[in-house]
Structure formats: structure tokens, C-alpha cells
């Protein structure tokens, strides 16, 4: 890579935490990417954790990057997190010299990236599916036009900016050695209006979140109703996978929105995607087309899914699904 080891600053990650205070999975991926880029650039990687109690996540993040700045910010709980975190992070970053700032491209990561871009007046490259270090800066791949094309983008000469990284495009891997955690007091001002969290409503969540699943068994309109999803769930259980759905199934109220895959749902990249009664419309396809193996069960051999699946079994999903359960059990 020509001109690779020429970063003029540090590769920073702004990390997200889970409700229990641990480091978000997406942040383990982004932190791994930061370290890889730092190695390629001859720079160092550092991370920021802003939370009411940042200890656990900061310790975890230090498993990935050399330096972690942890800020205990009481307002990070009880207020919408991203504005609080972005303002505290901006104060830290303003006194450092970042070569690039990385965040996740999920809801919180985007909110932080957008707010930081305004606060630091920096450009953003979004939804990276891969990032390399080239000519002194990040070279960012994005999937565009419904996955038909991959573009590579960079910041123009002399600029540095923020990159949001799509979940599941980097495999998280800890570094050989532990980084150092520095605890800092909250710095800077919270000038932006903060938004209060007045209540938290917990809903029965899916047993396994689809973003993290190695196997996804998904149901569409062909499943016919909430009861049809029992078969989808049963196959998912046997394969050790999560249950996904199309917008048609979600709009019908058969399954919650957080299990929807596609343009206005989640983008997933499991090793196996098994689709029952799903046509494979473009808005669904953009959410799952990079899955390792794609299999459809559909009674219509001309359904669009036949254009991009590895295997399509033509038939009734209930008959084939039940036979599949029997077959899998006999091989277990």
C-alpha cells in the first residue's frame, strides 16, 4: 500500500454500551477496525466511553485499543444518550489530533456521528462495509444501489472526518495486549438541549437478536399468520438461529418490527439465511443479500429470490418445512 504509514494522528472510536454497562457488540467490531487501521497507518488507536458508569465497557474496550478515555457522566443515563456523549466526546477530541473518528452505523452510532460532525464541523462517510488505509486516510467502501455496486470514497486532501461502520462487516478480535484506561472528568459544556427519558418500556425481546445471529430463519407473507411463525421458530431453534421477517409479515402484526430485515428494517449478514414464503423483493434483498448461504422455500419458482438464492425449493413451505424438521432431527 503506497503511502500507507503516514497517519497524522490517532484513530479514535466513540464506543456504545449495552443497558447492563457492557461494551456494545458493534463497538467491539469498530474498535477492531480502528486497531487494524492504526497498524496499517503506523498510528495508534484509542477509544472513548461516555456512560453513567463507564468502568466495565472501558475495561472491555481496552482489550481492543491501546488507549481508552472513560468519562463518568451521570447525564448519560436519564437523557437521550447520543447528544450527551457526542458533546463530551467532542471536548476530548478537540484537544487531540484525530486522523479519523469511527462509530457504529446503528441508531446510536449514527446519532453520535451526526452530532459530532456538526460540533466538530467535520465531514462524514457513512455505512462503511469495509475500510482500508490509503494515501494517508481512510478508504471507505459502501454498498450502493441496492447492493449492485460498491463505491470507494475518501476525504479530500487535507481533511479528516468521521466514518460510520455497518454492523457485522468486521469480525471483532481482541488485541494481544491490554490498553490503558484513563478516567477523565466530564469536560466541555452541554450546550445542546438535552432530551429527558421519562420512562423505559421493556418488551419481550426476541430470544436472539437477528443482528448477531449466525443463522437466520425468516418468514414472509407466505407464512400466512402468527401461527405460521411457530414453524419458522421451530426450524430456527433446531438450527440454533434467530427469527427474521419481511415488512409484509411485520405490517400484518405477525412479528415485531425489530425482527424486520430490509431497507427500512435491519441489515444482516448471517452465514445462513433460510427464507420461508418470502418473494425476495428488492427492499428485502438489500437487508440480507450478503448472507453466506441463501435458501428459499417458495411455491412460486419465479419469485425474485430465485435470482439470488443458492438453493430454492419449490413447494409449500409448511410441507417442506415439516419435512426439513424431520430431516434435521434424523441427522442430529
Amino acid at each position, binding site marked *: 500500500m503506497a503511502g500507507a504509514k503516514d497517519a497524522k494522528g490517532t484513530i479514535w472510536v466513540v464506543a456504545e454500551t449495552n443497558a447492563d454497562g457492557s461494551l456494545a457488540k458493534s463497538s467491539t467490531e469498530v474498535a477492531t477496525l480502528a486497531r487494524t487501521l492504526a497498524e496499517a497507518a503506523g498510528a495508534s488507536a484509542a477509544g472513548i466511553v461516555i456512560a453513567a458508569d463507564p468502568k466495565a465497557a472501558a475495561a472491555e474496550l481496552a482489550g481492543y485499543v491501546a488507549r481508552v478515555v472513560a468519562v463518568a457522566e451521570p447525564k448519560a443515563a436519564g437523557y*437521550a444518550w*447520543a*447528544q450527551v456523549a457526542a458533546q463530551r466526546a467532542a471536548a476530548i477530541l478537540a484537544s487531540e489530533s484525530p486522523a479519523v473518528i469511527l462509530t457504529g452505523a446503528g441508531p446510536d452510532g*449514527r*446519532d453520535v*456521528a*451526526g*452530532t459530532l*460532525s456538526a460540533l466538530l*464541523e467535520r465531514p*462524514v462517510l*457513512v*455505512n462503511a462495509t469495509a475500510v482500508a488505509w490509503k494515501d494517508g486516510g481512510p478508504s471507505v467502501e*459502501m454498498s*450502493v*444501489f441496492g447492493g*449492485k*455496486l*460498491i*463505491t*470507494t*470514497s*475518501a*476525504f*479530500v486532501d487535507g481533511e479528516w472526518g468521521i466514518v460510520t461502520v455497518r454492523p457485522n462487516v468486521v469480525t471483532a478480535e481482541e488485541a494481544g495486549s491490554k490498553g490503558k484506561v484513563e478516567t477523565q472528568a466530564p469536560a466541555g459544556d452541554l450546550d*445542546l*438541549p438535552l*432530551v*429527558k427519558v421519562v420512562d*423505559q*418500556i*421493556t418488551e419481550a*425481546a426476541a430470544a436472539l437478536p437477528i443482528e448477531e445471529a449466525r*443463522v437466520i430463519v425468516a418468514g414472509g407473507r407466505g407464512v400466512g399468520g402468527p401461527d405460521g411463525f411457530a414453524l419458522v421458530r421451530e426450524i430456527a431453534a433446531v*438450527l440454533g438461529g434467530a427469527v427474521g421477517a419481511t415488512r409484509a409479515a411485520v405490517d400484518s402484526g405477525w412479528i415485531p*418490527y*425489530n425482527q424486520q430485515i430490509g*431497507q*427500512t428494517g435491519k441489515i444482516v449478514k448471517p452465514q445462513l439465511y433460510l427464507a420461508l414464503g418470502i418473494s425476495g*423483493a*428488492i427492499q428485502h434483498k438489500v437487508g440480507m443479500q450478503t448472507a*453466506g*448461504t441463501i435458501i428459499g422455500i417458495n411455491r412460486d*419458482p419465479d419469485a425474485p429470490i*430465485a*435470482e*439470488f*438464492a*443458492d*438453493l430454492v*425449493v*419449490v413447494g*409449500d413451505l409448511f410441507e*417442506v418445512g*415439516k*419435512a426439513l424438521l*424431520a*430431516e*434435521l432431527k434424523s*441427522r442430529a
Partner: protein
Amino acid sequence: MPLRIVVLTKPVPDPAAAAERLGADGRLDRAASPAVINGNDEYTLEASLKLVEAHGGEVTLLSMAPPSGLETMRKGLAMGAHRGVLVTDPALAGSDQGSTIQVLAAALRGLEYDLVLAGFDTSDGVGGVVGAAIASLLKLPYLSSAAKIEPDPDAGTVRVRRISPTGFDLLEAPMPALIVGTQLLGEPRYPSLKGIMAARSKEVVTKSLADLELDAKVVGGAASRSKVTGTTKPPARGATTVVRGTPEEGAKAIADLLASRRLI
């Protein structure tokens, strides 16, 4: 108290037409593909229409787009929005997100509103950062991932059910505020014939960079701080095997493939 809502709507190439391509300059070739209102912006538009039906008030569409954006905006007006503001200027071609953010923020400074609604992301850009950045520039309370929007115009506050990994967070803020909405706001309506007729006479104000007192050295294509450096095709997927036969034969084909790829 009636509500004044501005909905940010971006014209995007219709994903269903699957005709998108880049021009020789590395920019989206807008002539190649029919444009539609960005899918996520239709959800926020639908929510805003329901809100003014319930509370009274008016919905203004705001887009930054080429002149053809007017045609796309007509569909939003046909759905029931009251007027439109289209920011269009030849110098805006090739804008990066930073420019889009500054331009939309400048246009909002010239409007009166209680709520600004933005979509979760765009189908062509998939950024989802524009709303947060505009809220910061305008110092508006920012409520994102909204599944439900409940303003209390008399109290001057708004509540949002924000989708969280474990359910919902109920957020509250004073208005004016900027809200980013999701599909859970509800399925967008189809324009009625009456709506389509009415849309023709609705007012759309066009604004140039000069009208917004913005300098083409600071925003727009010439000021873009990111660039496309190349394109590649994604690796092609292998051929599709189609199996017809008894359910058992189908099941066996699936299990064989899973076994051969070490997925079981």
C-alpha cells in the same frame, strides 16, 4: 393550538426500478432512474399528516434537490402536505452530507415550525446522520428512532417513543424539536384523486444558495470534503439450484447443502 410541521423529504432513485447508475463523473446519474420520495420520509410525512388532522396546523415539505425534485414533491403535496420549499441550485450538484446539512439548516432558519421531521435514513445514501447534525446546528432538542410522536401543543412539549434494543424509551422535550421517524409511525397513505388535483395549485417556493445567503465556496459540489475514488462490482453469487419434487426431496436438498457447507 395548531402544529406547524416541516418534513424533510429527499427525492431518491426508486429502489424498485433498480435502474440506478453512476455517471462518468462518479455522481448519481439522476436521469437514469425514476425518482420517488425516500421511503423513510413517507413514514414521517404520514405521521405529520395524522398529527395536523388531529391538532390542526400545516405541513411543509423541505427538499434539497435538482429542479426535477419539484415533480417528486408534488406527490407529497398530493398526499396532503400543504406547501413545499425546494432548495435547488446548480452549485449544489455533488454536495457531500456536510453541505446537505448546512443547506437544510439554513432553509429551516427561514421557516417557522414546532416540529421538524426527518427520516431514519435515505435508501440511496443510507447515512442517517442528517437529522442529528441539523438538530445540533439549530440547537433543537433531538428525538430519534421514533415509533410514535405525541405532541402536546398546549403545553408546548412533545413525547416520542424511541425504539430501544429492549423495547422503548419514552422521551420528552419542549417544542420546537427535531424528530427522526421510523416505519413504525405507520403505513403511508396513497394520494387520492382529489389530492392529486389539489397538489397542482399548492405553493412550492424555490430557493437558491443566494436566497439562503450561502456561499458556493462553503457548500455544494465545489466545497465537498469527500470524494468517490472508485467503484467495483460486488462478487457475483453462484448459480441458483432449483429443486422441485416431494417435500422430502426438498428437505433433503436443503439438509445436504447445509451439511456440505458445514452449517449443520
